[in-house]
Every structure is written in C-alpha cells, then in structure tokens.
C-alpha cells in the first residue's frame, strides 16, 4: 500500500496568513508613482452605428494626456474568431462596449474627461435573445462574418448570426424514434448573468524604450495575454512579460484577454508610459465578458422501462456581441450534450449566437451547468411520464466504462468517474428512500430535487505545463510554475504533490504565488479544473528529476550505487540499511568537502507535461476525444416552499462527486460548497435584465442580486474516489463541479413543490408567480 504523508490531509493554504492580515497583494494593490490612468467611455446604445465621436473637450480637460478611439488602431482581436475591435469601430454591438479611451494623470481626471467625450449613435434594430438571433429575418450583428480570421476549429455561418455551429450525429435517429414508447419535449431558457468576482478586472501596461512590453493583469491566462499581444500587435513574444499576482476570484471570467489590449493601446498613445486600467463594478458587469445564456429545446424518446433510445437537442447559446470563448463553450456543451447517460442515438445542434448583449466567455463549468439544467429537467419530466423514481431512472442508464459518449469516445474505468456509486451515496446522505420527496405542512411544502452531471474539458490537444523545483541549502524546496492562484488552492495542492513524492514535510515546500511569464515555466492557462493535472504532472516530473540528482550526489558521498538509495524524511539513505545516509541539507547545493570544493551543485528539478491522445472533433459528426476525463457527480437540493407567497428557502444542498483522489479534504469541501453556493445563486436570482433596446437595467450589486450570508443552506458533501490513471495520485478536477448540478436540482425541487415545470432561470418568486399565472407553452404538469 502507498503511504500518504501529505496527500489527503488538510494542509493549510500556502498564502493563508497573507490573506487574513491584508498584506496579500492583488494587481490593483501594486501602487507605482507616476503611472497614468485609463478610463473607458462605454456605449449607451446596444446596437447602432457611430455617427460621430467628439473628443475635443476631453482632450482639453485637466490632466488628460491622450484620447483614443477605435479608428486609431483598427484591428480585430478575439479567439477563436477575431471579430472584436478592442475599442468599437464605426459600430457598437452591446450596451457597455468601449467606444473611446481617455488617459490622464489621475484617475478622477480620466473619469471627468471621459464624461466630456461626445458620441452620437444611429440606433439599429436590436437582437435581444439567441432565439431572436436565429430567425431568418433577424438583423445581423456582424455583416462581415466571412472575413474574420479563425484560430481554432470554429464554424461561423456568414449571412446569419451564427458564430459557431457544432454538430453531434451518433447512431440512427429513425431507429431510436421507432423504438420509443414515449417521447417528451420541452424548452428551456437561461439568461446571461455574471461571474461577479469580488476583484474587478485590472491591467497595467508599459512599453519600454527598448520595445519591451510589461503587463500586470488580474488574469487566469498570463501566457495567453503574451501570445495574443504578440499575435495581434506583431510583437516578438520574447519582448513581452506578463505578471499575475494573487487573483481575487475569477470563475472563468478572467480567462479572456480584453483590458490588456486596451491598456497596451493606451500606453502606446502616451509614448509607452505605464498606464493602469481598472474596471468599475459597472464595467466589470457588462463591458467585460459575462456568463453565457442559453435557449434550448430537447426531445427524448424512451422505452417503457426507461431506456433512452433517442435524444434530439438544440442549444442556442447567447454568446453576445462577440464570440470569444462562447464559441468553444458551444462545442463543450455539444460534446457532453446528453448528460452522463447511455444513449445510442443522439442528434445535437449547438449554436453560438450573436446577439446585442455583452459578450460571453467561460464561466465555471464551461457550458455544463447550462446543459445540465436542460437535460436534468428533461430527465425529471421523463421520469414523471414513465412513473419512475427520478434517481432510479438515472441510476439504470448512468454512463460507465464500455459505453460511448456523444463524441463516440469509448469510456474506461480511468477516463470516467463512477456515477452509479455517486448516486448510491447521494441516496444515503439525503435519505432518499427513507423520506418522501414531498412533505406538506400547512402552506409549506418541502421537496427534494436531484441532478446528475458529468464534465470533461475542451482542452487543446497540446495543452501543457512545466515546473521547476529549486532546492534550498537547508533542504527545503521552492516550486516555480505558471498556475495562477485564483482562490482555488492549486498551489497548496501542488506543494502536497511534491512533498508526497519526495517524502518531505509539506511545510518545507514553498510555492511561488506570482506568475511571471519570463521566469515561470509555461502553463496553458488556469482553467477547466485542469491545473492540478497539468501542473501536477509537471511538478511530479520535477520532483523525480530532483530526486535523481540527490541520489546521484549521495551515491558519490556514500560510495554506493544510486540504485541502492532511497529518499525521504529529509535524508537520502541506503534502502537495505537506512542508518547509512546523508541529510538533504548537506547535499542540496552539492556536498561540501573539507577543502571547500563540492561534489555536485545546486539541485534543480525540472519537469513538464503535455496532454496526450486528444483529438479535435469531426465537423460533421462530432466524433473525437475532446478531453482527458469525465468527472461525474450527483447532487440534490431540498427546498421549503411557501404556497401562499411563492417564496422559498433552500434548506439543504447536497453533492457526491468522484474526485479521483481527495487531495486536501478541507480545500475540496470548500471548492464544492463554494461552487454549490454559486450555482444556487445564479439559478435562484442572478440575471441581467434587458429592456427592449437591449439596455441592461441592473449592472450593480444593489440591483444585481447574488447569494449573501444567510442565504446559504446546510451543505452535505461527500466524495467517491475512482482514480484517473493519468493524473497525479489519481485525482480528478473538482474546481468547477460543485456548480454544475445545482440549477437543475433546484428547478426539479421547485417544479415538484409548485406543480409547474420550472424551465426558465432564474427561479425567483416573481418568476414562479408568472409561470403560475401564465402556465402556457410547453410546460409539463406533474
């Protein structure tokens, strides 16, 4: 049996004491005298041509050094599709879009001057939902779609508002429908909302006289910032350095590159001087990218016994005005479109739609909370139609080894977690069989709703990471890597991985918090719950490399073969006689001889890792292997619903997920409960409210409601451990997973409580009231 020293223990966060004393530094905390401040002028119109921009008054305002408009640097940025000018050119496509930028000595001066920029718009008809966007007579958000450069597999349809179309064609639909005894059909809708990380996005830029570009950014993707600046502004990548200190929450919203481009242009406009651009909360809500919305239609065909034999799914994602990562989310949702179920015949069309809403990017779960809401609501509707227990239905068709995914990947015991076991464990912790699903006490109804989920990442086939392990003279070690600490605790888990491999005390491993793209080995980006896999593998390789060097030096010192030596507990020692050995502190920088010379020199371990065996998806069928493993889980929400005033309280939220290996129990629980809170928050109350002109009515915390203290339920969290053989110690990603099933479980619970199919988010009492009042359309009555 493997002896775990550091893995599986709740090692405190590396940066914990900094965070409770206020000394932890985030991007906007780094104060530099003499830097200039940038403020954006943003669009008050959701769709319109820019008739004129008068910057003359702003240029004359006190402290102003430059005013820029989109025409000053007419380029298009964005990945996978270059469709977005950093500052609008000739046309605006969403409320909040940057139309001009002011650079001034002081931030208040830039703000005052920004108000003096006079922009005249000619309004155009607004595309206010993805369903509107796909109509043949819909106004076009982008007229020149065909001309946009593409950097990844993405399939826009020129002459429409379709930025990407991903197809899944598996099995034989005709056969599936012929075998069906029952069919259910339903529509679903999720509005756009926001990540709302507490730290608003912030970037500084400086172009030095020798051409070196230096960026500081609150980002999940410092290496991508470097590469995108290089790509779009034709700068040698070795001339760009990006620094990312601690990040104050991200949730996918800090993965794309936006403010960095604007800050770079602003610096260029003032002769390369250092500039800082910080989003106000209002800008962070709507000017910067948001949490994606979705309209969906699902038709499921099943046998009387509950075998699903046909699934026809249409996803219309609200990608907003520019495609950004929404185009890839569209693919992610297609590849896992059915949820974690064994279904032989699948037809899915997943569309990334342009609308006149803020543009969407990755949000924790990357399309999975949204697709899960749709599929898991449909599963409950189907279970009711078949008169089957919702968890029994799910359990009997739970996907597992030997089954194929919608992308026709064959599952193994390694590349998918054990869903059946998660369901069984969930049943126990929520007392599913011991208590009725519905309990009525006067005008209060208590109900339990459930949801399963799965998630793979949409990782580039060559995504990778590196790590360097530097040994200090005292035998402790410093790990340098490119993973960003956004609150998820990856760096602490990395210290555990290294400590475990080197059998060292975890207190002896320090992990550098700041990422510097010049000095830290490259890491793809801190997204997709994949940093512990990618950087973890690199860190393991670095530890092995350091061990090899230590054993080599020790073999010379001890006069034996390195093969006879073992490492652990601060020493290198002989396997057959542990008494004979040498302290690591005596050899970490070479073993010092009496004459002052040394045997060997500083031990520096290096390691790197690149994803393997992934393939891109076939554009016609979706066949391919999109990511390294599917994490799975089962979740439940218990609500107490008041039938008089239609309010409700979430009493309990539960989750069992397959973590592969729980590396740090407290950190893992925190990731789960935090994710569950975020999922309940967006499902129950978060939404951007648009008027008919596409203007957002609530871009601030006073009107955009999210979970506060006291809204939190009791959390029940448990884990299953089915190792992913490719990952360090068998771990699976868990950072996003707590969110995924919550909206569906809440909606299933409330559908049961209200007797109305709750197929639209957010589930506010007002929405319940409206559904009760209208109760029209395709809603299915329980």
């Amino acid at each position: 049996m493997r002896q775990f020293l550091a893995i599986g223990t709740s090692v405190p966060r590396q940066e914990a004491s900094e965070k409770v004393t206020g000394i932890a530094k985030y991007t906007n905390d780094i104060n530099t005298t003499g830097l200039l401040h940038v403020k954006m002028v943003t669009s008050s119109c959701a769709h319109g041509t820019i008739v004129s921009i008068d910057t003359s008054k702003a240029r004359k305002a006190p402290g102003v050094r430059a005013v820029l408009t989109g025409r000053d640097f007419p380029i298009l940025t964005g990945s996978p599709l270059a469709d977005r000018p950093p500052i609008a050119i000739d046309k605006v496509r969403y409320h909040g879009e940057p139309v001009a930028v002011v650079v001034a000595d002081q931030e208040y001066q830039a703000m005052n001057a920004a108000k003096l920029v006079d922009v005249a718009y000619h309004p155009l008809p607004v595309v206010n939902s993805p369903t509107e966007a796909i109509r043949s007579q819909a106004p076009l958000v982008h007229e020149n779609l065909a001309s946009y450069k593409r950097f990844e597999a993405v399939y826009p349809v020129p002459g429409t508002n379709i930025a990407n179309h991903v197809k899944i064609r598996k099995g034989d639909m005709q056969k599936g429908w012929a075998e069906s005894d029952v069919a259910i059909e339903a529509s679903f809708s999720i509005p756009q909302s926001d990540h709302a990380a507490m730290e608003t996005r912030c970037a500084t830029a400086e172009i030095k006289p020798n051409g070196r570009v230096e960026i500081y950014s609150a980002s999940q993707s410092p290496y991508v910032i470097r590469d995108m600046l290089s790509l779009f502004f034709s700068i040698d990548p070795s001339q760009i350095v990006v620094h990312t200190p601690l990040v104050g929450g991200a949730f996918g919203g800090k993965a794309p590159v936006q403010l960095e481009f604007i800050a770079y242009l602003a610096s260029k406009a003032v002769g390369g001087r250092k500039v800082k651009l910080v989003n106000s909360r209002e800008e962070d809500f709507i000017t910067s990218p948001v949490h994606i919305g979705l309209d969906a239609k699902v038709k499921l065909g099943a046998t009387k016994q509950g075998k699903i034999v046909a699934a026809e799914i249409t996803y219309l994602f609200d990608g907003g005005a520019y495609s950004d990562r929404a185009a890839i989310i569209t693919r992610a949702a297609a590849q896992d479109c059915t949820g974690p179920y064994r279904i032989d015949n699948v037809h899915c069309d997943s569309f990334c739609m342009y609308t006149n809403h803020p543009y969407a990017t990755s949000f924790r779960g990357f399309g999975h909370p949204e697709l899960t809401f749709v599929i898991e609501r449909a599963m409950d509707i189907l279970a009711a139609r078949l008169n089957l227990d919702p968890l029994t239905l799910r359990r009997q068709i739970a996907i597992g080894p030997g089954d194929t995914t919608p992308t026709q990947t064959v599952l193994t015991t390694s590349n998918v977690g054990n869903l059946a076991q998660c369901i069984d464990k969930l049943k126990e912790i929520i007392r599913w069989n011991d208590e009725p699903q519905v309990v009525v006490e006067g005008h209060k109804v208590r109900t339990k709703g459930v949801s399963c989920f799965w998630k793979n990442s949409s990782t580039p086939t060559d995504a990778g990471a590196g790590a360097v392990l530097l040994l200090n003279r005292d035998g402790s070690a410093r790990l340098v890597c490119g993973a960003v600490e956004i609150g998820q605790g990856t760096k602490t888990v990395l210290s555990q991985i290294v400590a475990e491999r080197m059998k060292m005390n975890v207190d002896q491993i320090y992990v550098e918090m700041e990422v510097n793209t010049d000095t830290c080995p490259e890491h793809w980006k801190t997204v997709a719950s994949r940093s512990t896999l990618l950087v973890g593998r690199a860190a393991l390789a670095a530890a092995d490399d350091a061990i090899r060097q230590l054993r080599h030096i020790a073999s010379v010192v001890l006069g034996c073969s390195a093969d006879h030596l073992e490492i652990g507990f601060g020493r290198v020692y002989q396997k057959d006689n542990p008494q004979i050995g040498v302290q690591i502190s005596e050899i970490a920088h070479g073993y010092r001889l009496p004459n002052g010379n040394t045997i060997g020199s500083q031990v520096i371990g290096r390691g790197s890792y690149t994803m393997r065996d992934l393939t891109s998806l076939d554009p016609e069928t979706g066949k391919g292997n999109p990511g390294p493993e599917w994490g799975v889980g089962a979740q439940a929400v218990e609500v107490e619903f008041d039938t008089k005033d239609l309010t409700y309280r979430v009493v309990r939220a539960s989750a069992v997920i397959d973590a592969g290996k729980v590396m740090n129990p407290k950190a893992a629980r925190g990731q789960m409960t935090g994710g569950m809170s975020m999922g309940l928050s967006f499902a129950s109350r978060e939404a951007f409210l648009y008027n008919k002109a596409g203007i957002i009515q609530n871009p601030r915390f006073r009107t955009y409601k999210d979970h506060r203290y006291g809204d939190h339920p009791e959390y029940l969290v448990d884990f299953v451990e089915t190792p992913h053989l490719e990952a360090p110690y068998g771990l699976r990603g868990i950072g996003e997973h707590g969110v995924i099933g919550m909206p569906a479980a809440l909606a299933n619970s409330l559908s049961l409580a209200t007797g109305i199919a709750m197929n639209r988010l957010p589930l506010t009492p007002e929405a319940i009231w409206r559904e009760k009042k209208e109760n029209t359309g395709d809603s299915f009555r329980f």
Partner: protein
Amino acid sequence: MTIPRIPKVSIDLLVNNEMRNVVVRPSDTLLRVLREVLGLTGAKPGCENGDCGSCTVLIDGWPMKSCIMLAVEAVNQQITTIEGLKDTPIQNAFLEQWAFQCGYCTPGFIMNCHALVNIHPDANDKVIQEWLESNICRCTGYEEIEAAVKSVLSKQRSDGRYSH
C-alpha cells in the same frame, strides 16, 4: 461644462493608532486615501457604491464601508484597518475554519466580524445575518465564515470575557 478646481486640504487621520497627515481632495473617499496615499491596501474596492463590503474598516470600533465615507469625514475618529489587527481571535478563526479562498473579500469580512463579536458578544443567528449580509463573498458557500464567527462568539462566552 467646466470642472471647478477645488484646492486640496491637509488633514490628520488617526489610523491604526498612528496620527497620519495627508493632503487630500475634499471629494476623496476614505478608501482611496487609505489605499493610494497611505498604502494600506488591505481594504479593497469591490463596487465603490456601498454594496459589497470589501472595503470595510472600523470607525471608532464600528464597521464602515470606506468607499462611501469621505476622508475628511474621518478626522477626529479612530480608523482601524485590517493592517491594524494582529493575531486577533477572528483572524485565527478565519484561518482555522478556511473561511476564505481568493481572499479579496476577507479583510472586509474580518473587520465586520471583529466589530460584531466586540459589539454583540451575544449575537444570535438573526443579528449575525443582519451584520454579515452587507458583505459579499463569491468564493465560499458562507458556511466557513459562519463557523469562524460562531467559534469566536462561543469561545468568548466560555472564557467569560463577556457576561450578560
């Protein structure tokens, strides 16, 4: 439109028990002066609209959102920031209970909780909620923060530091 220039003023602020002389615009918020003039960046801007609580400091022991208070209003009052707290029970409780992840809202929460346990040692669930719902944490599910504040309250009670 012309923007009037209003002269800066020199004021003395008592911050973390030190008298600090600062030259500020009358319209500068306390948050901006703490961060940008005094370098006390523990208090964080989260909304600068009084909605999120990440900028919370103590004014004469009471929690105050420093983004909606002018620096000139803080003259003659005791200002305490997170940098002024050392090894307090609530900081230790946040460490023990893992009551933070990204850490950005943490100073504001700690200041609010610190004042709460001092001012309302007998706080029940309702009082705790009234106080803490003024701050937003986007990372945790709030259960760890609840555990932290309750652990300090119950420790205080069992130590008999407060008797009511």
